[in-house]
């Protein structure tokens, strides 16, 4: 175990996988100078510019070229700089990467990692703050990953690189400098599709991912002091998502909140809540928290207005636990 940042954990994961498999390479703008956020720092010196490959401002070619290179047996990491710029290569991701295997009847494989940091960070405004993970979950062929902590950033990036499917790998920009314990083992991976339990509780289940997990954690801590115990699940992978862990939890707690940073309308919270409502009917009380349907603005009060805060989460929990079930939390 070592203490390191989320960013550094991702850097090490890539370095380890590049040592382990000569077919792994990364391509994107400015990678030779460490990439937009320093995620590639020092790697060009180790692996050379063929494998830490600079790219022009050509998102369609970065992603589309990676599709072709993946079909030919290499394992590219297509660095899209920010999730918002994946929009400049959406045909290449959705019509090409996601469908190549299927439409060729299984001949093509596209072992591709599309690395696309998401999220609200530093007043980056409407075109640099989006979280569109729900879109990718809707597209057959794609695996969708949103790590929240350094250890998962390492373990999941390694799994994504080893995966033979195209994986949309979304780090959160606000987490890059966050720290945590990370296993040193070069064989440490986190399986795709497995959630993790952040804290155990019995009054209510919160499902979250990416940066929102940390706000939910704070809410859970506040609530613990009030005697409300929250079962907090970090989904980590959105497709496939860990229904087993979520179902087990909600069966116990009877209450579910899904909290995410993305816009609530059409967000992936709807998928989880709908799935639970279909499966358990009225036995589980459900609630979604996500951003209002508005772009992210620049000025702090405007940027903050669309955030799902820890207070908002705590308030929603209180309402569901105390009011909605007509009584004090069980066991409080």
């Amino acid at each position, binding site marked *: 175990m070592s203490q390191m940042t989320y960013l550094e954990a991702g850097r090490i994961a890539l370095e380890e996988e590049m040592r382990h498999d000569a*077919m792994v*390479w990364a391509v994107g703008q400015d990678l030779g100078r460490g990439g937009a956020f320093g995620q590639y720092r020092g790697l060009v010196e180790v692996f050379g510019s*063929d*494998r830490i490959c600079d*790219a*022009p401002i*050509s998102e*369609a*070619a970065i*992603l*589309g*070229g*990676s*599709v*072709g*290179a*993946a*079909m*030919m*047996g*290499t394992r*590219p990491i297509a660095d899209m700089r920010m999730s918002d710029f994946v929009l400049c290569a959406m*045909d*290449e991701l959705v*019509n*090409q990467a996601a469908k*190549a*295997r*299927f*439409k*060729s*009847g*299984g*001949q*093509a494989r596209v072992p591709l990692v599309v690395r696309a940091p998401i999220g609200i960070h530093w007043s980056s405004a409407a075109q640099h703050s989006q979280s569109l993970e729900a879109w990718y979950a809707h597209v*057959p*062929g*794609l*695996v969708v990953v949103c790590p929240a902590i350094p250890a998962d950033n390492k373990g999941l990036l390694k799994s994504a690189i080893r*995966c*033979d*499917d195209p994986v949309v790998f979304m780090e959160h920009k606000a987490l890059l400098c966050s720290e945590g314990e990370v296993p040193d083992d070069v064989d440490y991976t986190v399986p*795709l*599709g497995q959630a993790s339990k952040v804290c155990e509780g019995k009054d209510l289940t919160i499902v979250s991912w990416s940066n929102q997990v940390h706000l939910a954690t704070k809410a859970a801590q506040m609530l613990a002091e009030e005697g409300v115990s929250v079962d907090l699940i970090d989904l980590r992978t959105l*497709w*496939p998502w860990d229904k087993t862990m979520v179902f087990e939890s909600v069966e116990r707690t009877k209450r579910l909140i899904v909290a995410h940073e993305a816009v609530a309308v059409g967000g992936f919270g709807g998928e989880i809540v709908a799935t639970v409502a279909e499966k358990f009917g009225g036995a589980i009380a459900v609630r979604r928290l996500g951003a209002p349907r508005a772009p992210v603005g620049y000025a702090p009060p405007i940027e903050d207005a669309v955030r799902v805060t820890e207070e908002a989460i705590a308030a929603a929990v209180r309402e569901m636990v105390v009011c909605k079930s007509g009584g004090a939390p069980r066991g409080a």
Partner: protein
Amino acid sequence: MKNRSQRIINVARLRAHYLLMHRIRALEEVAARAFEDKLVHGFLYPSIGQEALTVGVIAHLTKRDLVLSTHRGHGQALAKGASSTAMFHELLGREGGICGGKGGPPHIADFGVGLLGSNGVISANIVIGAGAAHAVKLKKEDRIVVCYFGDGATNRGPFLEGLNWAAVFKLPLLFVCEDNGYAATTKTRTMTAGPGFLDRASALGVPAVEVDGNDVVAVEATAAELIRKVRAGEGPLFLHAKTFRVTGHTSSDPGAYRPKGEVEAAKAHDPIARLRELLIGAGVAVDVLDADKASAYAEMDAAYRSAREAAFPAARMAFVDVQDVGSPLVEAF
């Protein structure tokens, strides 16, 4: 002596081209019949009239070399070595289809013969082809990539991004622009500014050459030189060729938007007829040529018959080969 034997060799080669061009045309014509028989489910994009550019370029490729084709790519598939039977099974959506019946007309692919496939999105294969060539270079493999696209494809962004990419990374890639003058019902030149395709390519660092796309001898000679350079690692090159699609854009398009007489005029330059004349001039007997042609149609008739008799794939195949992780086969719906 040398000259004579070379001419003999060329005639042999040209006869092979003649056969292949007829096979392509026969495939398209029999497929059109299948469409009229209502056994093709989607649209066909026939390549009749464009055979020379396919045959003259792909003649220089080995099986390990890679080809990316267009929605109008049945000819390239056949030339690269794809099985006509498997293709007909695909067009009819049957078991044994070259893509398991999942792709259909504009998605024919056969990785076994180096055919990375057609594409239903115009110009998408330009960046994918650049990426394939990038992988070839990274892996230091001894093969090249040939990427076909139409004249209309030169107006989409990936054309710029893919050519620039190929030139920046000096990739082993030949771009082939099949200029049939039309993009669907639109005359491409009415929507395409600038002095022409050669300038577009060379402005992006890809030296470009022009050839008569209906003259298989010229195509083969020009492609020989380009492919020699691409193989030698000199970076990407661009071949532009005027040609003509004799049919409508799709199997259901009568092509009514064409000026009167255009198709007839174009037919006078039919690449197969021109090659036939050349071969007759070179002393090949007419009945030998007719036999080639007949064998092409016989092959395609048989392929069509085989497809008609094949079963449809099982519905379950709809969920196979989507993905490994989170596959719909595992997920319950």
